[in-house]
């Protein structure tokens, strides 16, 4: 973060570099926030949960509805943020839990392709459900994160929302790592991920652990939904799809299944796009992002921090 303070630099070229770097960090943190959910689910059951982007979108919608209602009743901003965030987390988790139960659990022993197709179906279903139940219009998302006064001198480089997103992503990554490395649930998760049958044999309730993973992943998506929607100021039923694709790319880039990998992948992707926009052209931002993905996968097929999968013969 220190790099974001321009006081140390006076060279305009360097200023521009720092501005782009900070843009890239924000963008990367946004991708990382969503990518964490992808990577957790993949780590446990080896499924790419394409409906994750939609869970993020539902989180944003829930936060939108709650925040709008509360602001009509004149609640203070901090209360609105906490209550809307709380509602979004619970609602999204309920969706994540249900999606897993309906669409993935019956296919647990089916070939790998079946739950994947089921996930794509779920994604399309949820998108259209929100489209029909809510609206096809773009809705103005209230600015839930205020402009902090102490940020004003550097607001043209990093905004208050950017800082909140960066810090949230870092904190969530830390908590997740601690949970997975240090707690009983985390231990059970790791065991399930390594060998499901064996985990069952030693008395781990595998179904409950998988449900817990989906609930945690969905809760993260909801937090992301609230923060990101507040950052870009608008939502509609389709935001999950586009954000989901980029986040998925980030997860693969960093090594799908790895928690720090998702964050690193998100940041690398965000920085690449930002620098490509800044120094080449935003017309080619996606070209650079995906060329980078291809390059990394050629040299490290399991991603930056992914573990190489050893297949037993």
């Amino acid at each position: 973060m220190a790099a974001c303070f321009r006081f140390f630099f006076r060279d305009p070229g360097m200023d521009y570099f720092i501005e782009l770097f900070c843009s890239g960090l924000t963008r990367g943190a946004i991708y990382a926030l969503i990518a964490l959910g992808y990577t957790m689910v993949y780590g446990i059951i080896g499924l790419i949960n394409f409906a994750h982007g939609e869970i993020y979108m539902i989180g944003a919608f829930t936060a939108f509805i709650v925040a709008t209602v509360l602001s009509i009743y004149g609640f203070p901003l901090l209360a609105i943020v906490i209550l809307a965030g709380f509602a979004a987390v619970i609602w999204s988790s309920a969706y994540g839990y249900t999606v897993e139960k309906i669409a993935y659990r019956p296919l647990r022993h089916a070939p790998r392709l079946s739950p994947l197709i089921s996930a794509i179906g779920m994604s399309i279903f949820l998108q259209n459900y929100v489209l029909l139940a809510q609206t096809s219009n773009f809705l103005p998302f209230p600015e839930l994160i205020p402009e902090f006064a102490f940020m004003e001198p550097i607001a043209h480089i990093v905004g208050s929302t950017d800082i909140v997103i960066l810090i949230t992503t870092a904190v969530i990554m830390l908590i997740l790592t601690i949970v997975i490395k240090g707690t009983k649930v985390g231990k059970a998760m790791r065991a399930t991920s390594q060998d499901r049958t064996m985990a069952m044999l030693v008395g781990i309730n595998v179904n409950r652990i998988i449900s817990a993973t989906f609930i945690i992943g969905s809760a993260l998506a909801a937090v992301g939904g609230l923060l990101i929607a507040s950052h870009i100021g608008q939502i509609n039923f389709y935001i999950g799809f586009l954000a989901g694709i980029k986040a998925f790319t980030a997860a693969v880039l960093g090594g799908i299944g790895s928690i720090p990998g998702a964050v690193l992948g998100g940041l690398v992707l965000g920085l690449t796009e930002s620098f490509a926009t800044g120094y080449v052209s935003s017309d080619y931002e996606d070209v650079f992002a995906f060329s980078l993905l291809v390059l990394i996968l050629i040299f490290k097929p399991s991603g930056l921090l992914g573990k190489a999968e050893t297949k037993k013969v």
Partner: protein
Amino acid sequence: MKLMRSKKILAAAAIMMLAFSAPVAGMAADTIKFGVAGAHSGDLASYGLPTVNAAKLVIDQVNAKGGINGKKIELLIEDDVCKPEVATNTATKLVSQGAEVVLGHICSGATKSALPIYTNANILVMSPSATNPDLTYSGEYPNFFRTIAPDDMQAKVDVDYALDKLGHTKIAVIHDKGDYGKGFAEFAKSFVEKSGKAEVVLFEGVTPGAVDYSAIVQKIKKSGAQAVIFGGYHPEAAKIVGMIKKKRLKVDFLSDDGVKDDTFIKVAGADAEGVYASGPKDTTGNPLSKAAFAEHKKVFNADAGAFFENAYTATLAMVNAIEKAGSTDLAALKKALQTEKVDTPLGNIYFDDKGDAVGIGFSVYQVQNGAFVEMK
């Protein structure tokens, strides 16, 4: 032997056709045949049918008053389904039926493919909706006129406003990579370059749906642009405008018809204040426009639909030209269209030598206190 017979049949058919066409030519003396061509069925029918209604309303009024110069007007309505390959047949049919002027076609592609047939037959064509710039600019179709502004008109209006009214000399042109947005941006770029008064310091496309636009906003800042001209739709415009405010960048933001939408003001909120967007000139205060809509409501008991005013205007302009010219001879009609001003729902208009209507076009609007206000 077979060949001989078929030749004979052909010859007979040709003679028959000549024989039948003679009475048609004779009837032409009694009525003026007014062709209406466009999409009247298929998925784009909603663009073409309002034109038929507009023509019916105007022509019925004219006929009720005894027609033009003692002649009644007869409508020949032909469908082209908005398809270029069908439009040539439509045009051939109208020409062979003796149409003397044609209102249409609706879609630019269909209009372009039909035009050579009318040009060869020296028939005046006026479209209420074909916006492709080349139709008039290319000079290939001296018989073509239109009562809608060409596609590049919006860009011209925006660029003129930024350069002349706001006095900017450094312009950043941004678009959303889509057909509409990029087309608009390319016109804007070429107008800025041709003006000689300003330079385009940045020309780039952004990816719609991106989660963050701060990098492109930083690039705009570095380019030193005083104004951003954006081609695209309101969701991206709202995000970019919001990001410009967040990065404390002071630039004017000008955009197109895709942004001149109340949803933009709703979504962008306070950030929308001061944003400029071009849109069709406001005609709601024009009594002729009000009367045309009221009449449509009375006769058809429905709302008018797309290009209704443009078609109403075109029909009025053509009828007026026939009356002033005293015939349907192309040269005389052209002269009348270019010199005689006519009052229409779209204002008091005449046509330039390329065929575009002078007085029809776009205005620049600015968001002031949560509403678009037309800038004079």
